[in-house]
């Protein structure tokens, strides 16, 4: 049965099979993390190519068509295939530990979510080798994308449909996990902020991804099966795509930024060595941001011509979001205020995050004013704004949390020294790149252009901006080197690596056993690890049950098979408009594989297995040596 009492050394095949079939949230977290890093690197290279092209006026480093493909894939990949999985990686690895659970609510679905995401992402990237990538921007407005020749847009639609389904499934899984799997005593108002933001961000996924699914489906049938949703000559309306896309698209940015807020709300109290200031207002602000996130989508469409009433309503709703976000910023500052601050690498990222994100937020409120938005629309000001929010908010959170959580996830550490270098190179590069783009936008440089004429006053700023982009790339390379070097560091093998851990995940001794908690913990208050330490508890945990048999889920290969089925079917749909004879059979075969796997899953009982007390003791001894984890 699974990996109990299996010796340390396993062959490559066995390890591979283990990862292909695993339902363990910690392994899936690692897989999400590495998949995310892979796509982050790809999208980063795309950005670098674009910045090289824009370094000097009238450049011919890449062609206009390729530039369109690069900008589309950069945006799509960064949002769907890099930021999302990187955050999912932390959610998977950390949230069950924070709430005192042995696994997520639906381990099988967790694995299915990963494989759908991964194969969808691979499918999307195959477009580069199969006749051209999508080239209508990450928003893929129907008026452009319906008439884009080749299969680029079809790859976009099908790839995102598959990976979007995976994201939705993972979202449902997180919601149910957080609702039902909390340890005794872990009430809603004792949950760490990262768990709260994971819950709210998963809720946003729950409500925001269906409109995307619907929009993508309309695009799919319009392009591949002759439907007329967006074709105005047949009564369709291209604005419908814009609405559906932004009903999804606006919550999507909160889906990404809320977990980032949560991660910083974990990091800041630990290194300020103070309780998080205003916990309940933080929770309230998170919920409010989530709710308002659904009421503001049309601020992306002020220039569409919805009329002054609609514009005014959406403008005011958008500005309202500044209030709960401001609450959060002040809470972070007041947490740091008067604390005994340790400036470690994660804290450095947090300190860099606050001013950068505020800058992005303030430009957001500027654009919320509809009349001003008419000036700023589709200019580089927009580009500067959302990069300040996304890089300044989300990427810093991801990098900082990699340093912060590395000991729990891998039982190894990232170098602090190299981390400080990475931070400064990346942070300075980031501001060089995007700060000047505000002014490029105000001077009238439109976004999404592949080149520009000299002597409009844009030359110098574009040049500096490109230098900054190269610095960011160097920063990322340093981080990757840091990750590689960490393999050689000695194992951590301790609890509470940072010494000031507050939430439950720091109470567990690393390496975390596959069942997480040998006994379910009893949570006696907010910040349970801190609480137990204050009371002199060496184990940092109070238990809710005696040592007993542990029930764990079985591994399964079915999630991978289901995802492969959809992957195959997507090729059939892709080539359908070409009139090839095999397109429909391929769709049927692909969907057949998926449905068969689903029926197998439904019919075959899966009771999981029990780890008996003796096996638990043996496993503890194997991990922590004689005496075990008392």
């Amino acid at each position, binding site marked *: 049965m699974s990996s109990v009492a299996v010796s340390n050394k396993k062959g490559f095949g066995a390890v591979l099979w283990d990862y292909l079939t695993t339902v363990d949230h910690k392994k899936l977290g690692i897989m999400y993390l590495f998949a995310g890093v892979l796509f982050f690197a790809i999208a980063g290279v795309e950005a670098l190519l674009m910045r090289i092209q824009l370094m000097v006026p009238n450049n011919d480093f890449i062609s206009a068509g390729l530039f369109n493909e690069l900008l589309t894939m950069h945006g799509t990949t960064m949002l769907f295939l890099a930021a999302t999985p990187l955050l999912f990686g932390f959610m998977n690895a950390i949230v069950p530990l924070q709430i005192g659970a042995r696994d997520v609510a639906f381990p099988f679905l967790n694995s299915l979510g990963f494989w759908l995401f991964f194969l969808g992402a691979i499918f999307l990237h195959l477009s580069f080798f199969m006749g051209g990538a999508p080239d209508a921007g990450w928003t893929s407005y129907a008026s452009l994308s319906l008439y884009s020749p080749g299969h680029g847009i079809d790859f976009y639609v099908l790839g995102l449909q598959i990976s979007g389904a995976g994201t939705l499934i993972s979202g449902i899984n997180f919601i149910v996990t957080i609702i*039902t799997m909390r340890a005794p005593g872990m009430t809603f108002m004792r949950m760490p902020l990262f768990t709260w933001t994971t819950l709210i961000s998963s809720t946003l996924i729950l409500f925001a991804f269906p409109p995307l699914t619907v929009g993508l489906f309309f695009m799919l049938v319009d392009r591949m099966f002759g439907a007329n949703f967006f074709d105005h000559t047949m009564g369709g309306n291209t604005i419908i795509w814009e609405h559906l896309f932004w009903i999804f698209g606006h919550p999507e940015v909160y889906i990404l930024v809320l977990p980032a807020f949560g991660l910083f709300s974990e990091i800041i109290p630990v290194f300020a060595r103070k309780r998080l200031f205003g916990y309940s207002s933080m929770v309230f602000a998170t919920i409010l941001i989530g709710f308002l996130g659904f*009421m503001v989508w049309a601020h992306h469409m002020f220039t569409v011509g*919805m009329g002054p009433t*609609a514009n005014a309503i959406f403008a005011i709703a958008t500005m309202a979001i500044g209030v709960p976000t401001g609450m959060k910023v002040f809470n972070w500052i007041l947490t740091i205020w008067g604390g005994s601050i340790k400036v470690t690498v994660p804290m450095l990222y947090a300190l860099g995050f606050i001013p950068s994100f505020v800058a992005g937020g303030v430009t957001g409120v500027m654009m919320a004013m509809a009349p001003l938005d008419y000036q700023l629309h589709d200019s580089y000001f927009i580009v500067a704004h959302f990069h300040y929010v996304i890089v300044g908010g989300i990427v810093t959170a991801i990098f900082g949390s990699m340093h912060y959580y590395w000991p729990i996830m891998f039982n190894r550490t990232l170098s602090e020294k190299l981390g400080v270098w990475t931070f400064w190179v990346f942070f300075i590069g980031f501001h060089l790149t995007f700060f000047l783009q505000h002014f490029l936008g105000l001077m009238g440089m439109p976004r999404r252009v592949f080149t520009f004429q000299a002597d409009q006053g844009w030359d110098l700023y574009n040049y500096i901006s490109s230098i900054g982009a190269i610095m960011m790339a160097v920063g990322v390379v340093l981080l990757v080197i840091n990750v590689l070097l960490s393999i050689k560091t000695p194992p951590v093998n301790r609890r509470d690596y940072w010494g000031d851990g507050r939430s439950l995940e720091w109470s567990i001794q690393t390496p975390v056993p596959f069942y997480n908690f040998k006994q379910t913990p009893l949570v006696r208050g907010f910040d349970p690890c801190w609480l137990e330490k204050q009371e002199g508890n060496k184990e940092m945990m109070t238990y809710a049950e005696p040592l007993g048999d542990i*029930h764990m889920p079985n591994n399964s290969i079915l999630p991978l098979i289901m995802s492969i089925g959809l992957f195959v079917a997507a090729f059939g749909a892709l080539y359908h408009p070409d009139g090839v004879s095999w397109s429909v059979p391929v769709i049927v075969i692909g969907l057949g594989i998926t449905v068969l796997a689903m029926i197998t899953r439904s019919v075959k009982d899966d009771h*999981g297995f029990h780890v008996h007390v003796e096996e638990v003791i043996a496993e503890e001894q194997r991990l922590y040596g004689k005496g075990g984890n008392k």
Partner: protein
Amino acid sequence: MGHHTEVQAKSKAQYEYDRHHNAVHMRKQVINFAIMIFLTFLAFAVVVAGFSPMFIKPFILLLAGIQVVLQLYSFMHMDDKNGHHIGVISTYVWSGAMIIFPVFLAFVTVVWW
């Protein structure tokens, strides 16, 4: 964790109470079903009878709303206080309903040609 639970034989009184309670509950469900059928019938009837659309449209939407609430709270047991985290579930259902409201509003007002 797991699906093994303590198997407890109910006392005779408890068993009979549960049986009776289930039967009474089922009777209520049949009454609810009758109400739903009646509402459906009414909706079709007012359309066939040809009243003014100004009256019919809000009226049948109201009937649909009532019928959906009946389905959710009786057939789907959202009224069952013993349901696991039923309060959280209702919050989610009604949040969903709230979120789709502006979507409908936007699609019938600001998507125009």
